[in-house]
């Protein structure tokens, strides 16, 4: 038995049975990270000492019989989550020495269960990117092929879980930032419904789209981790006060009679042949499992990317105004005056893609352009949301590819931002609609890179997509493959 190959659920059993201690688990991961992370670069901060201390506390709790679902389980967090006493950089120069004074609500929730936080994970700076190449601390590499990107922006989270550097990770998804890297790294990524998980303490990229979710080895673990972080938080006005169901309880229900919709607009030219084949194979599997396949239409899909890049960047241009060098973060000491201080600090602190999006968003909100860009985008967003509601009147879940291609190579799209933006074409509409979706492994390309399947659910129907995903996982072996690494 290799400790770092075990899932959360398997570890839970072994910790509960005293076959393993939390300290042993933490040590196994420490060794694994030390052995592999110079290649993968999934971590920005590795929590050697604090993880060991947390593991000891978890062992004490286990000994005392005070066992929560996550007690002693090694979990890593994207460096977008505030973690008290730890560096929280958002992969940006501007926060490179920023130590958070408080915990994000989701961090507080997993800490309360005495999970062991193994470290803070690499990402695209301020979650802006689809390849993890926009990190101020070096690109993360895809464990399936180190010349390829892991996807982004939660690329560190997906690569970390795929390379067995943590049993699970927390990511955030604004336009596909959990699902697309999960797909590229052959792991399971879940983006919950907007409002399902608290955003308090999560560094904001685009507030109306950001949502926290788990990245795990399999679907059961996804349910387990979602269970721990979901639920209303009075500190986040946009979190919804609606009961959280028991996700494990319905996981194994049969799919007979389930209506699975295939949006016509998602199976078009530009979709990689390997991806198409894998997704069609998945459709066949669902038929065998008793699901009814229905063709549906999401007519406004082609506007989603443009709509997203107006709304997300508009919000970001305002969200990132606080990084001004006044209270924390990078501040130039060369400035002649106040305006100079702002300009130099921000010029030095932000990377190129962040600057590009701040400019784009500032433009979209500027007087004279607001109506034509921001307001128009909001109207389109309403139509896209309506598309989903109409489709969900006919089906229970939607089945689509996650990304048009498997992971591309490092540097392949860095000079073509538009091409990069299009890699989120299948994930972005879900964020605009505010509903839930997940990515799970459904095959491999000829080159041996993982391919993901996207299941999109009705708002607050995470249980349905988890169950749908679990049935597929039980019927297939894709999730059992590990990178040779």
């Amino acid at each position: 038995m290799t400790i770092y190959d075990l899932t959360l659920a398997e570890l839970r059993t072994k910790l509960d049975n005293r076959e393993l201690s939390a300290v042993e688990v933490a040590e196994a991961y420490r060794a694994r990270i030390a052995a592999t992370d110079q290649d993968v670069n999934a971590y920005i901060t590795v929590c050697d000492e604090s993880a060991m201390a947390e593991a000891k506390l978890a062992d004490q709790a286990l000994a005392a019989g005070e066992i929560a679902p996550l007690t002693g389980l090694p979990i890593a967090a994207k460096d977008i989550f505030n973690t008290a006493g730890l560096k929280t950089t958002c992969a940006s120069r501007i926060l490179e020495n920023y130590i958070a004074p408080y915990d994000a609500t989701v961090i507080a929730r997993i800490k309360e269960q005495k999970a062991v936080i193994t470290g803070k994970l690499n990402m695209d700076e301020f979650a802006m990117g689809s390849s993890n190449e926009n990190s101020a601390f070096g690109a993360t590499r895809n464990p399936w092929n180190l010349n390829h990107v892991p996807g982004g922006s939660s690329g560190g989270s997906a690569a970390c879980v795929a390379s067995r550097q943590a049993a699970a990770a927390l990511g955030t998804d604004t336009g596909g930032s959990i699902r697309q890297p999960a797909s590229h790294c052959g792991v399971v990524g879940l983006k919950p419904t907007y409002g399902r998980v608290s955003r308090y303490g999560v560094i904001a990229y685009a507030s109306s789209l950001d949502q926290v979710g788990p990245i795990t080895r399999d679907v059961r673990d996804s349910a387990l981790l979602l269970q721990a972080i979901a639920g209303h938080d009075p500190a986040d006005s946009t979190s919804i006060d609606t009961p959280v169901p028991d996700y494990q309880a319905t996981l194994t229900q049969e799919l007979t009679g389930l209506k699975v919709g295939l949006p016509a607009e998602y199976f078009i030219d530009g979709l990689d042949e390997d991806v198409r084949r894998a997704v069609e194979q998945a459709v066949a599997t669902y038929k065998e499992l008793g699901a009814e396949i229905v063709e549906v239409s999401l007519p406004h899909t082609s506007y989603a990317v443009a709509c997203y890049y107006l709304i997300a960047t508009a919000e970001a241009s305002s969200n990132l105004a606080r990084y001004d060098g006044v209270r924390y973060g990078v501040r130039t000491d060369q400035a002649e005056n106040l305006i100079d201080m702002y300009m130099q600090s921000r010029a030095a602190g932000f990377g190129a893609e962040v600057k590009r999006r701040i400019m784009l968003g500032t433009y979209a909100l500027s007087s004279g352009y607001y109506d034509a860009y921001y307001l128009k985008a909001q109207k389109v967003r309403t139509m896209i949301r309506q598309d989903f509601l109409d489709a969900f009147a006919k089906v229970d879940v939607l089945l689509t590819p996650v990304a048009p291609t498997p992971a591309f190579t490092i540097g392949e799209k860095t000079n073509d931002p538009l091409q990069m933006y299009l890699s989120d074409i299948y994930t972005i509409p879900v964020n605009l609609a505010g509903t839930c979706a997940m990515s799970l492994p459904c095959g491999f390309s000829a080159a041996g890179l993982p391919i993901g399947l996207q299941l999109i659910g009705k708002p607050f129907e995470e249980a349905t997509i988890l169950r749908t995903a679990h049935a597929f996982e039980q019927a297939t072996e894709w999730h059992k493959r590990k990178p040779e690494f």
Partner: protein
Amino acid sequence: MTQPYETVIGLEIHAQLTTNTKIFCGCSTEFGKTPNSQTCPVCLGLPGALPVLNRQVVEFAIKTGLATNCQIAPRSIFARKNYFYPDLPKGYQISQFELPVCEHGWQDIELEGGESKRIGITRIHMEEDAGKLIHGDTPEALGTSLVDLNRACTPLLEIVSEPDMRSADEAISYLKKIHQIVVYLGVCNGNLEEGSFRCDANVSVRPYGQAELGTRAELKNINSFRFIKEAIEHEVERQIDLIESGGKVVQETRLFDSNTGMTRSMRGKEEAHDYRYFPDPDLVPLVIDDSWIDAVRSSLPELPDAKRKRFIEKLGLPEYDAEVLASDRLLANYFDACVTHAKEAKACANWIMGEVLRKLKETDTLIGEVPISPVMLAELLDRIADNTISGKIGKTVFEKMWQTGRGADELIESEGLKQVTDTGAIETLVDEVIAANPDQVAEYLGGKDKLIGFFVGKVMQASQGKANPGMVNQLLIKRLKGN
């Protein structure tokens, strides 16, 4: 020959609310604490922190809206006003732009000559205040600035009027009305010096008869009623001079300097703002249903205008008295409580406006701390009304009540201050005084009627002020004429 110009003024009033905690976090709003001691991740604008709306702020906004005849929006939204400044931790201020909480209100003001004029209130919206910059003034600290964020995120109401005022006096009158209302409602302490109640004035001029408005200047930084008048008058003069000399007024922000009484332009980078307002995605739309509005409405106190009207119409007070007594909520409450226990409203008014206010001033006491309760004052006034004591003795009793906190009846009894109304006893004193002053009696009888005052004074003196002055007067005349 100067062409006649009409002045047009609109006011933007910022009232800092008296909630215990800030508008979007749980930090205290107490004034004067150690810099940055009343802060948290939210009001410091730390990465990841999110705002949560303080319900009491909404309640205060509804109150103010109802008191100024506004429509309360069933659904309103918060917006971000984006600009960079070191006292603004998030790089944006959370305010309201489209869909403010209150709209379409009005407030009547009284013009000279008793006429009343209606000033439109465009909107009232909620927003957060910024922090404060402290600029180094010692040689070592020169050129450095420190930021205190204790005030950041404290709640403000911005009350925006229509450009309905036509003179500085009208503007002052309107401003005082709004000031009185927010203080009455208890939503703002009204302190101008501390900046709890601030005002910007949009001022323009146009030739009489011209329909469209002239280009306006926004006057900022005015922290007293007097300065507002000065600032507006100076600005009107400046604009007229400019136009007369062939110049053009430019739309700009001007700062009032209370030392020179002048306004000066603050044109420059800080003014060239495009605030890029957009709905704040961190806050959900604010929904206010009728039952909430009704609950707030039923908690509203009687407002100054209504009170004044009642004092005049129901209690028969002169306009001046009604105005003075209604001007302050606690004073009015004191008066109302006194009236319910006393026989005469006018006497209550006279005593409160005279003795009570004088004493408050003398002893630097607040109306809430007066040692004589309204019931006690009513008792004193009744003793004067029923002739137990004279008005003059009443003042002595009042003084003793203030000092000791004892009741009027008790003091009159123990100090033996009861008025002498026994005819026989007064007659004795009258006879004594007549006998002792034969010269004056002769003069009186010779036609010097005025001397009656002299005799009354003597008798009162002899009675140690306790004789009923009316009876003394009557008996004196009777005796003198009878002689």
